[in-house]
């Protein structure tokens, strides 16, 4: 079969066609009913129903629902593992596949693609902002671009977290796959039509509410806001299903001897993140549905004229959307903790403290949401409670920083690209860390709230807590999932462009924020002294953008041309490095047994796992 034919008949393309058909059917159905009832012409109800049916169309077209439909009819469904029959290996990645490693790579590739889309949005409005006055965008376009940038990047980060967790956790705990392989495939594939909805919302007129969609603005915003809100909502299914799957996998499928405190530290981080996703996502889903239903069928939740309350939405929204930033950063911080011992040749300092600090951050993270509402009209008693809770997050976060530095102390450090990105991550997350408490304290926040200081702060936490560690993870596990080593020189070039670029960008953002630059504005007064810094931020943003393209080139080109990496190029103790690269279809041909500590580097004769339990004498 030719390449084109394989792509054209792939699950992905069939899914997209299914989505188009589903959208047309749903839209037509509602519009015809409305015509029949003689209602005034309004495309919105049809668009909303069409958006929902389009997701079902995608899932049906792609084949996500096939096995479940057969179950409903009582038919046999053997769990199909392995390449698509009669097609080359790469075709697996375009089809519904139940292998967690395939799904992990599907997540990773989608994440990077979506990251590039969100990055193009950012670069576009950064160029607009480099000079005062409007250059080439209208207010409408500007508002749509910054709103789209926010939600698209969040989608990208969730996909990236899904990539790391899916690929790594079963390998690290010695499982052959996730507990529910079909649900795992659903978790990935449902995020694709969600992304399509969000991008369609931007294309059909956009919206101007930012990614937060606060009512009453979101109630009167253009039609695009509906598709964005529905895309956001549908993506929640991915988070909930994925996190439940992960929790059950870790709870029930660990290798013999792997007690909780003997799990690789990344698994702790993944569990902490999954606990948040499994319990908080519903709340934002409800808040988003309330916006949709108030717009379409007039249920009143947020209009004060008839008893609604606009602030209610903010509580529901941030009850998820604050903890979710820990979903973004905890796996990233887990990567830092995972890689530091390998490149320092020393045990992870304070393993239990780091493990428990992840849970601590996850739990305290549930009690801090109203700091996003410090100036929203919340009374003082509540504000003070949330202030203390917010500032307590600094304590477990501090534990992580101190433990990382102590791990490196008196180690034998080497600086391959993954380690460079780990160090970059610590430095950038530190910028985010030290600029956070000043936002957590109410009086200083009254000045900084909704300013560019906040923009600088959260970009530093997102880059330090997710982007840098995610890139470190891509480089570090690249030899494992591709079998070959990436090009070290290009990896280092990427690092030395991106790190100073990012420092300049976020430090510049905080500088003008302190001076009074507001968030989410398309223009600024040239007399305020922001001009130079805005140019610096734009140039730094461009450098970051180019450096990511260098990474993409490196990862694509190295897959063919680079030398084979071998099983364990980093000399790691972790289980996934003790098997072939790439790993076999079912990971471990013989189950392993945990017989030591995961990070006992420097302890003579110690091993973490034994591959053949029959020889252990037990």
């Amino acid at each position, binding site marked *: 079969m030719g390449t084109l034919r394989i792509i054209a008949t792939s699950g992905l393309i069939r899914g997209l066609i299914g989505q188009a058909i589903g959208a047309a059917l749903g839209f037509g159905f509602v519009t015809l009913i409305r015509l029949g009832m003689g209602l005034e012409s309004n495309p919105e109800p049809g668009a909303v129903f069409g958006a929902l049916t389009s997701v079902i169309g995608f899932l049906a077209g792609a084949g996500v629902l096939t096995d479940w439909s057969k179950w409903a009819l009582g038919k046999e469904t053997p769990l199909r593992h392995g390449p698509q029959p009669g097609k080359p290996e790469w075709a697996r990645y375009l089809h519904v596949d139940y292998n967690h490693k395939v799904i992990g790579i599907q997540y990773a590739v989608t994440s990077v693609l979506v990251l590039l889309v969100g990055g193009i949005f950012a670069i576009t409005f950064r160029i607009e902002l480099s000079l005062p006055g409007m250059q080439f965008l209208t*207010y409408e376009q500007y*508002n749509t671009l910054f709103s789209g940038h926010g939600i698209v990047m969040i989608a990208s980060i969730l996909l990236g977290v899904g990539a790391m967790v899916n690929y790594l956790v079963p390998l690290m705990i010695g499982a052959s796959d996730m507990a529910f392989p079909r649900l795992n495939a659903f978790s990935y594939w449902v995020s694709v039509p969600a992304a399509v909805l969000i991008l369609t919302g931007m294309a059909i007129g956009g919206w*101007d509410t930012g990614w937060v969609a*606060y009512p*009453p603005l979101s109630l*009167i915003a*253009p039609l695009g806001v509906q598709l964005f809100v529905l895309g956001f909502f549908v993506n929640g299914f991915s988070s909930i299903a994925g996190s439940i799957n992960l929790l059950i996998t870790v709870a029930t499928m660990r290798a013999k001897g792997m007690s909780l405190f003997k799990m690789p530290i990344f698994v702790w981080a993944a569990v902490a993140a999954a606990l948040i996703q499994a319990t908080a996502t519903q709340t934002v889903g409800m808040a988003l549905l309330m916006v949709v239903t108030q717009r379409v069928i007039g249920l009143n939740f947020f*209009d*004060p*004229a008839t008893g*609604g309350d*606009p*602030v209610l939405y903010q509580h529901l929204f941030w009850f998820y959307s604050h903890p979710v930033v820990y979903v973004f950063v905890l796996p990233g911080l887990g990567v830092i903790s995972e890689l530091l011992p390998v490149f320092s*040749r*020393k*045990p992870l*300092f*304070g393993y239990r403290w780091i493990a428990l600090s992840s849970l601590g951050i996850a739990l305290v993270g549930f009690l801090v949401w109203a700091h996003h509402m410090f*100036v*929203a009209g919340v009374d*003082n008693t509540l*504000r003070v409670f949330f*202030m*203390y809770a917010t500032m307590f997050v600094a*304590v477990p976060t501090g*534990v992580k*920083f101190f*433990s990382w*530095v102590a791990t*490196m*102390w*008196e*180690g034998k*450090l*080497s*600086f391959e690209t993954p380690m460079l990105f780990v*160090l970059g991550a*610590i*430095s950038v997350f*530190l910028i985010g860390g*030290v*600029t956070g*408490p000043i936002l957590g*304290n109410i*009086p*200083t926040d*009254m*000045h900084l*709230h*909704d300013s560019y200081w906040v923009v600088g702060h959260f970009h530093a936490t997102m880059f330090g807590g997710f982007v840098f560690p995610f890139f470190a993870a891509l480089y570090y596990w690249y030899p494992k999932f591709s079998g070959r080593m990436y090009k070290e020189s290009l990896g280092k070039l990427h690092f030395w462009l991106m790190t100073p670029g990012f420092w300049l960008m976020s430090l510049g953002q905080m500088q003008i924020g*302190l*001076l*009074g630059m*507001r*968030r989410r504005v398309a*223009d600024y007064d040239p007399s305020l002294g922001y001009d130079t810094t805005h140019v610096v931020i734009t140039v730094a943003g461009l450098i970051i953008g180019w450096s990511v393209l260098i990474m993409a080139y490196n990862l694509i080109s190295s897959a063919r041309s680079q030398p084979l990496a071998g099983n364990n190029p980093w000399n790691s103790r972790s289980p996934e490095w003790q098997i072939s690269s790439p790993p076999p279809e079912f990971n471990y041909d013989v189950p392993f047994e945990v017989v030591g*500590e995961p990070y*006992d580097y*420097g*302890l003579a004769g110690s091993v973490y796992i034994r591959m053949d339990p029959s020889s252990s004498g037990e």
Partner: protein
Amino acid sequence: MSNRKHIYAVSALVVVGAIVTYFGLTALYKLPVGASTEATTIDQMFGVYFGLIAFWFALIMVFMLYAVVVFKRKPGDTEDAAHIHGNTTVEILWTVVPLVLVVALGVWGATTLKALTSEREGEMVVRVTGQQWSWSFEYPESDNLVSGDLVLPVNQPILLKMRANDVLHSFWVPEFRVKQDLVPGRDTELRITPTDIGDYMLRCAEICGLSHTDMLAKVRVVSQSDFDAWVKENSLPAMSELSTEERGALWYSTQGGFACSGCHTVDGSAGAGPTWLGLYGRQEALEDGTTITADDAYIRNSILHPADQIVAGFPNVMPPIYEAQFAAKEAEILAEENLTVDIIEDLIAYIKTLQE
């Protein structure tokens, strides 16, 4: 070098690093001029936080960079490093010290917040209204005084009672430091005592739709005598003393309370909505391809039902809230002056005067 010597060396470097970071930070990171008593209080906290930022940043960065330089693996060394997996004393120390610091800062923040929000003697109330995309300010202590600029007497404690008409907005004058959202359906409060005579700018800090960027208002802090003079000059006359055209101009302005001027210019320049210059009798091309003459009926309908007939090239962003607002205002005038006015008629009369 022994571990103890490394610790001495790195500690000295942390001190140097913290000092350098602090001076760098204070040189490059400036707050706007402080022009209120709140700014004085809050800036003290900024000062302490900058010191803390410099210290914690230097502590981690210097330790990390020291390790990078000093504990670099030598070429050809394949041995692992020392087997150190933790130290409970150190772990407890770096948990408890930040905890104590957090509580102390929290107490300071809570006390300061109380001071910033509690009632002051001799407060003057200003009612702030925000709507897409303009501000208006009402001075209840003076009869009939509504302004599009916020004018405040210096050293006078002010209580801003704020309300949004349509969507969320946020009151932020960076020189005053404090910020507060305006929420539809409920009053929010903010207390300010301006201390420096001068001109400032109020900028909406909460995304509020298309022209959020342009939702500005001039803020002038003036002496008490200048303020008294301004009040005298700007208080509105009785409605019965005004012609319909004059009333229309008033409703159009931010001073009149409806702020049509937020989106519609009267000089022919572009706004979020079509300009009113030469509007009456103009042929308007609509979005649906038809053309219409702007007459009384069209203008009335466009105010009451803005989404009905959309002029080509303009987004449909005008909120359908004016019918209710006008009715309330008309009832108020009827009650106060026993005068029946039709605000839309006033506006049409005003628009007729705006010929090119």
